[in-house]
């Protein structure tokens, strides 16, 4: 089988076949490339030649829960608008999910080129209004009324609670100027698995059920084999919704008055915590919850799931295995429910406000809403549509569509939006602390509340928030930079002109600079500016949604706040360091061993290599879904493999992103990164190919053992490559971001909030671009110091053929 002759003879014949395949492959690739260039080229040409007539409105929105179908409906409505309004063209941008949407919106706003019309979620109204991003709409409504415009919008047609969600007076939501026209909304409650209720022999909950009914039901359902009573998500919004049913909230009449210490609030929160932690069978203890958590209901293994709004309905309509329905939030001391809603808003900087207003009217008109609600994913904000068969479709699940509207009709029921203050830090801090207390075992409620109060006041009392600052001296900054640049240039010219070198050394120097010039030019063009800019911004307070002239100069304020008073910063630095310490050594050793294996001449090695490399190709959303499944504590593959092994020593596998996240969260990301070693492995493999065979053979003849040969010859010869890989791994690992961003969003609490993820939160969710820039520079210094130490010390153990001084 392993005879050399046989395999050699076998190699020559397939070569011809392979080369035919290669030719075919190359031809296909070439054809694809030519076709692509032609398609793109002709399109770009026609874009250049296209006349720019009429008004162009730019509309930015997201896909909502309806995905591609919702996208199509928006597209149809906009085309109909174009047809009805000659001379107005609409350019639609849909980045997909809300996070991508807000990133995109922010870059457009920062450049002074905002979309004319865009979505805004109720939770961002206060901060967007405070930053002056949205136009006030009352004037336009009044003008329509005066003109008696036939297609004018009647606010009375819309549910008052949805309209109030977009009013803001500079302090409170619910009154003041109107900033958006709600497109649709939802109330929240629990989805119930009716089939499981029948199995357990209990009746379906009544519409006016209480929390006592709720937990009793959950306990009964939890006695069924393999069934958890209920899934309860602990997003900050839902925790506040829960508190409101007890007539409580996290704060008093305004956000300055934090009420978390109120014994009633603590007792109410503790009841929720106890359900989650002490009654495994009744409530999921945050185990299955990764991201939306809504999907868990579709498996039929939980009796109830919530509090969710209407948005899960399109997904749940695909359920075939059981009957399901919806019940509004149970009542506590009082009857209460909350609404979540999204509106169309107009950019304050829009140059076509009149046309934009017409578009907003068009998109929120009765006809448009009728069409949009066909997907069933939200309640139309127009009550005539909501109360009509268009929404209350008797043929589509859930049976109790009316249960979504019932809280609004009940005069006793307090239905309001969950409002947040203009400073988004409040929601993030509160969410982070409550999430960790409710989902993991390592933070008590008291400690969480104390944490929140301390960090919130550290933030609020910081000079960055309290102080007033002068505008950023851009003119001086630019002048100073120009002077420094000129001085450096002069110094360089003198430096290079001075040292008289021999002819060939001079030619070599010139050629060297010429060869390096692509990078030098690129550095000056595309890197020097952003780098200097981020350095300047790190000394500024800038929200990143206004143009640069709005930036204020805060000196070292960002750095002082970060290093002295930001606990989340310290936590993120620790979480990242922990990850780096696990992922870098493990990854390098694994990759090197893999490369050594790959370097052996066994049959089918090409296929093995491809297989080992494959996971490195995977990226994007699909992979996040995959890893969520792998690390699911109950249903996941990882724990299915670990359970029998750990069972031998009497241990249970960890809840990676739940209770045990403090210890196991970052290593879980390390394990994920192990599957991505393909690239590093390939570089090691290329390095191994570089190790002179004659040296190894000579050593082998001298009867040097295999292990010794590796350490004496291979490893030193490989040392430059090892240095390269280790450095790259360090730089990459300190910047770990994507996987955590899509999988956990940093949760539970801040236990997987890596450095760059926190930086992203600051830049794109908390609108602190200056603060984020300061973070970037601190990270740069950290990595640079480690790199320089490595490079310095590497001289001792890295062997180069050239590069000798």
């Amino acid at each position, binding site marked *: 089988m*392993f005879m050399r002759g046989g395999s050699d003879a076998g190699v020559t014949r397939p070569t011809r076949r392979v080369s035919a395949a290669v030719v075919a492959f190359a031809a296909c690739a070439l054809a694809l490339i030519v076709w*692509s260039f032609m*398609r*793109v080229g002709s*399109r770009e040409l026609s874009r250049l030649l296209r006349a720019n007539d009429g008004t162009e409105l730019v509309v930015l929105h997201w*896909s909502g*829960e309806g*995905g591609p179908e919702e996208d199509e409906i928006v*597209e149809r409505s906009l085309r109909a608008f174009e047809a009805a309004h000659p001379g107005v063209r609409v*350019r*639609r941008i849909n980045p*997909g*999910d*809300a*996070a*991508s949407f807000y*990133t995109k919106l922010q*870059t457009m706003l920062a450049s002074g*080129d905002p979309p004319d019309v865009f979505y805004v979620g109720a939770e961002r109204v206060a901060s967007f209004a405070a930053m002056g991003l949205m136009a006030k709409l009352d004037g336009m409504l009044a003008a329509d009324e005066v003109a008696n415009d036939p297609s004018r919008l009647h606010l009375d047609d819309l549910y008052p609670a949805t309209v109030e969600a977009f009013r803001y007076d500079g302090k409170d939501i619910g009154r003041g100027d109107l900033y958006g026209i709600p497109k649709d909304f939802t109330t929240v409650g629990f989805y119930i698995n009716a089939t499981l209720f029948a199995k357990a022999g209990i009746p379906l909950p009544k519409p006016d059920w209480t929390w006592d009914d709720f937990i009793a039901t959950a306990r009964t359902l939890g006695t069924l084999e393999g069934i958890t009573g209920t899934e309860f998500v602990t997003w900050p919004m839902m925790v506040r919704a829960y508190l409101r049913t007890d007539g409580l909230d996290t704060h008093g009449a305004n956000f300055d008055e934090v009420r978390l210490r109120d014994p009633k609030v603590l007792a109410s929160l503790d009841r929720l915590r106890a359900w989650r932690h002490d009654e495994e069978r009744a409530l999921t203890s945050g185990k299955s919850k990764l*991201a939306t958590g809504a*999907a868990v209901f*579709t*498996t039929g*293994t939980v009796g109830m799931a919530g509090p969710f709004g209407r948005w899960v309905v399109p997904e749940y309509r695909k359920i*075939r295995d059981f009957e399901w329905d919806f019940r509004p939030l149970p009542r506590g001391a009082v009857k209460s429910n909350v609404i979540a809603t999204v509106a169309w808003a107009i950019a304050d900087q829009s140059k076509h406000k009149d046309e934009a207003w017409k578009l907003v009217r068009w998109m929120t008109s009765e006809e448009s809403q009728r069409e949009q609600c066909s997907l069933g994913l939200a309640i139309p904000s127009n009550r005539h549509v909501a109360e009509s068969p268009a929404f209350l479709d008797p043929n589509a699940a859930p049976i109790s569509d009316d249960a979504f509207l019932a809280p609004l009709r009940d005069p006793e029921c307090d239905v309001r939006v969950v409002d947040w203050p203009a400073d988004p830090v409040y929601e993030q801090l509160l969410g982070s602390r409550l999430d960790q207390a409710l989902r993991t075992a390592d933070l008590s409620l008291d400690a969480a509340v104390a944490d929140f109060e301390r960090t919130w006041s550290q933030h609020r009392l910081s000079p960055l928030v309290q102080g007033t600052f002068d505008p950023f001296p851009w003119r001086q900054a630019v002048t100073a930079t120009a002077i420094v640049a000129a001085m450096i240039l002069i110094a*360089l010219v003198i430096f290079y002109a001075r*040292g008289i070198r021999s002819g060939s050394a001079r030619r*070599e*120097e*010139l050629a060297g600079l010429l060869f*390096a010039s692509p*990078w030098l030019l690129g*550095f000056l063009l*595309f890197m020097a*500016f*952003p*780098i200097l800019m*981020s350095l300047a*911004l790190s000394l500024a307070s800038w929200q990143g949604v206004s143009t640069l002239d709005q930036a204020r100069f805060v000196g070292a304020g960002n750095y002082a706040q970060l290093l002295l008073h930001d606990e989340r910063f310290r936590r993120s630095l620790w979480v990242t360091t922990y990850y780096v310490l696990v992922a870098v050594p493990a990854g390098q050793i694994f990759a090197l061993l893999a490369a050594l294996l790959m370097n052996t001449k066994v049959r089918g090695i*090409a*296929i093995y*290599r*491809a297989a080992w490399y494959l996971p490195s190709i*995977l990226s994007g959303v699909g992979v996040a*879904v995959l890893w*969520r499944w792998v690390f699911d504590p109950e*249903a996941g593959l990882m724990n299915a493999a670990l359970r029998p092994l750990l069972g031998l020593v009497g241990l249970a596998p960890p809840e990676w992103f739940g209770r045990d996240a403090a210890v196991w969260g970052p290593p879980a990301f390390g394990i994920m990164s192990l599957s991505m070693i393909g690239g590093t492995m390939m570089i090691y*493999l*290329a390095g191994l*190919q570089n190790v*002179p065979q004659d040296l190894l053979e000579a050593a082998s003849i001298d009867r040097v053992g295999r292990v010794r040969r590796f350490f004496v010859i291979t490893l030193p010869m490989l040392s430059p490559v090892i240095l390269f890989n280790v450095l790259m791994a360090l*730089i990459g690992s300190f910047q770990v971001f994507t996987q955590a961003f899509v999988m956990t969003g940093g949760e539970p609490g801040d236990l997987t909030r890596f450095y760059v993820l926190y*930086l992203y939160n600051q830049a794109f969710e908390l609108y602190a671009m200056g603060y984020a*820039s300061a973070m*970037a520079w601190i990270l740069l210094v950290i990595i*640079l110091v480690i*790199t320089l130490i490595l490079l310095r010390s590497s001289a001792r153990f890295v062997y*180069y*053929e*050239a590069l000798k001084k």
Partner: protein
Amino acid sequence: MNAERTVLSRLTAHGLLLVGALLMLLPFLWMLCVSLLSADRAQAATVSGDLLRLLPTDPQWQNYPDALSQMGSRRWQGFLDALANSVVITTLCVIATALSSSLVGFAFARMRFRGRGPLFVVMLATMMLPAQVTMIPLFLLFRHLGWIDTLLPLVVPAFFGNAFFIFMYRQFIAQIPESLIEAAAIDGHGWLGIWWRIALPLCRPVTAICAVFTFIYVWNDFLGPLVYLHSDEQATLAVALNSFRNQYGGVNKVNLLMAASLVTMVPCILLFLAAQKQFIEGLGKGAVKG
């Protein structure tokens, strides 16, 4: 005796390789299974621990045309546009990156010029700033140049080299025996000739790696196209794939998403298979004999 040991070690190698390969293939197989399930079964399979539910007993091949036709808002056109955009951007980036990076890497490894050391450290440092902070300044710059909503911001920077690959080329070019370079110089080759005739051929594995990495990176890049391109018809495949996500980052049609993801991956796999031949054979032949 020696032969026995060889057979034994070969068997162990095979065993380890096989186990690893199976592990590494799991994600891919999982995606394949989910992509062939019906919508309701796919949703359930991604959250249940029951592996049997994953098996596509009734494979829905229709998912593939459905998925591709639903990318973007215009039936099929969205996919074709995205494919063409991705191919154009990626092809240009791969060629430009390999050429410019090897040139600069060669300079850093082999040519003596003053300031080489400090420049090299500056180059390394540029990799240490997270892209999230330079994104907005870069956007302002490109907007000033009038490049927004064109493919230029995604392609032009590739012509100026990439620090990662410059470093990689430098590490490998520094390993080439001095005698080879001297011999070429004696043969009358200038620096350009040495780079083109000696360094580049000897660095074929590095170039193969550079091509594969750049291809995969650019092909999968999401943030760049998201920020710089506005129009639907300018979207790349990575951005078009995002249309399967919804407001809260969940996925509506997980089976279609997996189907579309797999189709999107095909060029990466083919390129890897093509490049790996180059990359393995390259050095074995020429270099080390010198």
